[in-house]
C-alpha cells in the first residue's frame, strides 16, 4: 500500500471507524485510540486486507471490532460478551433527553448485540456484511439483532408508543 493509498483510506473511512468505536465504547478517547490502532495495523500489515473478501470499510470495521472486544475482555474479564439470559428492565424516566436515553440503552446491551445493532442501524450494513465483519454466521447475526431490538424496545419503552397502535384514519 502506497502512502497516497493509505492517506485516501484514512480520509475515506476514519469517520466510520470512529462512529463505530464511539458507539461501542461510549468514550471519545477510547474511540480515537481505536481509530489510530486500526489504521496503524493497515499501514504495517497491508497484506492482511484481501479485496476479494470485502470492502476496506468492512475490513477496518472488523479490526475495530476486534480491538473493542479486546478492551472489553481486558477491562471486564469475568463478564460474558453475549448474555442471552439477561432481561433488561425499562430505563428509569429521567431528566435525560431522548438521545441520552438511547445512548444509555445501547451501551447497556451486551457487546455482541451492541455491535449487531450499531452496524445494522447506524452503518446500514446488510446481514451478510455484518456476518463477515464479525466473523459470525448469518443465523447468529439475525438472532443477536432480534434480541438487541427486543431489549432496546423494553429499555426505551417510555419513549416509544406501544406496538400495534394505529395512527391515522381508516
Amino acid at each position, binding site marked *: 500500500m502506497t*502512502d497516497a493509498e*493509505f*492517506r485516501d483510506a*484514512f480520509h475515506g473511512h*476514519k*469517520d466510520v471507524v*470512529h*462512529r463505530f468505536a*464511539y*458507539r461501542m465504547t461510549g468514550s*471519545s478517547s477510547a*474511540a*480515537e485510540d481505536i*481509530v*489510530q490502532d486500526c*489504521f*496503524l495495523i493497515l*499501514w504495517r500489515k497491508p497484506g492482511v486486507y484481501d479485496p476479494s473478501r470485502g470492502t476496506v470499510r468492512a475490513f477496518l470495521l472488523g479490526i475495530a471490532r476486534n480491538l473493542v472486544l479486546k478492551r472489553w475482555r481486558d477491562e471486564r474479564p469475568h463478564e460474558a460478551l453475549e448474555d442471552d439470559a439477561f432481561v433488561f428492565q425499562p430505563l428509569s424516566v429521567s431528566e435525560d433527553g*431522548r*438521545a441520552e436515553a*438511547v*445512548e444509555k440503552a*445501547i451501551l447497556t446491551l451486551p457487546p455482541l448485540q451492541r455491535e449487531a*445493532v450499531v452496524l*445494522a*442501524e*447506524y452503518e446500514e450494513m446488510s446481514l451478510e456484511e455484518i456476518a463477515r465483519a464479525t466473523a459470525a454466521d448469518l443465523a447468529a447475526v439475525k438472532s443477536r*439483532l*432480534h434480541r438487541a*431490538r427486543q431489549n*432496546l*424496545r423494553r429499555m*426505551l419503552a417510555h*419513549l*416509544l*408508543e406501544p406496538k400495534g397502535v394505529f395512527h391515522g384514519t381508516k
Partner: protein
Amino acid sequence: MEPNDPQLRDLLREWQTPAISPAVEERVLRPHRAWSSFLLHGSIRVPLPVVYGLLVLMIFAGWRMSARTAQTAPCAANCNQALTGAC
C-alpha cells in the same frame, strides 16, 4: 434492524456521535512524513538505560584520553630527547 420497526429506528437515530478530533489525523499520518521533514523536525525517544550506558562510555573515553595525554606530556616537554629519538 428489521424494516417493520421504523419507530425504534427513528428513535435510535437521535443519538449522534461527536466528530473525530483533528489530533487523530496528526497522530496517524505523522509517521508517514518524508525523511527530510523528520531530519528537521523529528524527535526520538531514548530509553534511560541507553542514556546511562552512553554516559558511562563517554566518561570512560574521557578518562582514557586524559590518561594518554598525561603519559605523553613529559616526553613532549623534553624536546631535546624527542628530537634525538630517545622518546
